[in-house]
């Protein structure tokens, strides 16, 4: 069953066509890698799917609902309930410690629960670093806090923009293992990356160039147990 569908989605910034008539279907529980060089439109597509930006034209259907027509308020509520975001730059609140960064997402969703937030950190192997500020954590640890924050409200879709872009190999493997685990549990994943190693662990690889989808193929080498 389809979780997300992009129908002829375009985004234009002045003269620049960042995304041109993109069509994409994502099934529930699917793990997709969106790949392409810098400026290919990956981040624009992610921003549109993540409700952080609106398309200039076209439709974004999420769970059967056309979210391009939603008001800003509804869109915020929708995004809060359905989507967890993971970023290359982590985007943690620097004056809040790890568990508070997770709890703030709980607060905006429903209500903060420290026990649950600590469990989310435990899931990404960071319970013992819960009281550390982002500046006291390594890049890999910050990314895991970011993932815990994305997971805390049990979203249907995890949207990750270059999640391993700032990580060393060891931390990259930790993050990919977490994604594998999430996928096994049935969470849908869209990972935007230009790193072939990260792209090749996904079920499906969508390639973008100059704002256009140039290929959309199943990854034959994908393995659940990998």
């Amino acid at each position, binding site marked *: 069953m389809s979780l997300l569908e992009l129908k002829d989605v375009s985004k234009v910034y002045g003269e620049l066509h960042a995304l041109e008539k993109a069509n994409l279907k994502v099934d529930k529980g699917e793990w997709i890698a969106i790949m392409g060089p810098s400026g290919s439109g990956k*981040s*624009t597509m992610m*921003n549109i799917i*993540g*409700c*952080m*930006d*609106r398309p200039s034209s076209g439709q974004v259907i999420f769970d059967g609902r056309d979210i391009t027509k939603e008001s*800003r*308020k509804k869109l*915020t*509520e929708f*995004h*809060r309930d359905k989507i967890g*975001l993971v970023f290359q*730059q982590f*985007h*943690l*609140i*620097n*004056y*809040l410690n790890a568990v*508070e960064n997770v*709890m*703030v*997402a709980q*607060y*905006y*969703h429903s209500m*903060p629960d420290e026990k649950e937030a600590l469990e989310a950190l435990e899931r990404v192997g960071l319970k013992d670093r819960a009281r550390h*500020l982002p500046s006291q954590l390594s890049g890999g640890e910050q990314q895991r806090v970011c993932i815990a*924050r994305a997971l805390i*409200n049990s979203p249907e879709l995890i949207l990750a923009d270059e999640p391993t872009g700032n990580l060393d190999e060891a931390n990259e493997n930790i993050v990919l293992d977490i994604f594998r685990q999430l996928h096994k549990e049935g969470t849908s994943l869209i990972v935007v990356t230009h790193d072939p190693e990260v792209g090749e662990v996904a079920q499906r690889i969508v390639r973008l160039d100059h704002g256009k989808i140039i290929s959309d193929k199943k990854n034959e080498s994908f393995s659940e147990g990998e």
Partner: protein
Amino acid sequence: MKFAFNVSLKNIRRRPFRSAALGALVMLLTICLFLGAEVILSLQGGLDAYRSRLGADVIVTPSSASAHGSVDDIFLQGITGNYYMSEKDIKKAADTDGVQSISRQFYLTSAKAGCCSARVQIIGFEPETDFSVLPWIKESYSGEIRNGDIVVGSEISVPSDRQIKFYGKKYNVAAILGKTGTGLDNAVFTGYDTIKEMARSAADIISRKEFSGVNIDNTASALLIRVKDGYDPQTVADDINIHITKVQAKASKSMISGLSDGLSGISGIIAVLVGAVWVFCFIIMLMVFALLSNERKKEFAVFRIIGASGKMLTAVMAGETAVLCLAGSAAGLLVSVPLCFPLSDMIHSSLSLPLLMPDGAVLAALCAGAAVIPLITGVLISLASAVRITKAETGLLLREGA
């Protein structure tokens, strides 16, 4: 809500330099607002005290009084002496065309000697005709002033037995008057019979030459005149000056107008200065909060992407600003409230201006106003920033703030 408030507090605490700078700015604004308003109100209060002290349309004193000061100084600052006019001149003044009623005042300076508790100006008034001193006394004392009673200005030190000695006799302090901010705060007031008794004792004890040839029973140091409707006080004063050679008459309006103009000018300058500083602080606050919200674009975008609605974001921004503004205002009031007393004294003594500090309730209202105005300003600025940020696309904000 508690969690959001804690998040705001953490932001404030974990950015001490930024928080201290913003707090200091609000503190400066509060000090400026509070002290500026307090000085303007004190000047206005002083002027009002002068006005209510006057009550008369024309003031008449003997020509010999000019050795002690101008009519303005004598009457408004309480700079009195022992000078008296004849019964004949009093009658002539009372008979001048346009005079409706007249009230006599008798001035006496106590001696700095064993016969007197302190050297002060004593002002005797006629309770039956007075329209200048009694209304003021009634603000502090509603009882009757009997023979032998005195009423003292706020600066006069009253012994615990409430007895003050003048020229060998003790007088009962019936009331202590409210502060006027003028020299009258150092004066003693009493009925005409009591002051005549004091004057007789003074003449006996120290044989003052001022009393030679003076009929204490029928004399006066000053006449307070009310003119009939349709008469110009200045014309009546001029008439008295022309026809009675041994007295000087002055229309009270001319006495107060110069002072009033001066005070209005100074109040105006202070108001403009306070306004200028306020506008300056407002612009600085606007710039600082605009810069801060720009610097925090990424942080706000993060709040948005983790689910904060526009309302929630606005509440966080306004909450943080409110905490900073309240802390800054509290610090500002802690500095400025104790400062307002010495500042008033300094203005009073260095500029010789009448200052009457507002009472406790007005000061409390000033404190509230000085705290609320920066609070409203800060919150409005942060609301404007919040609206601007919540209208922008989150993805763009995140890229701009990265």
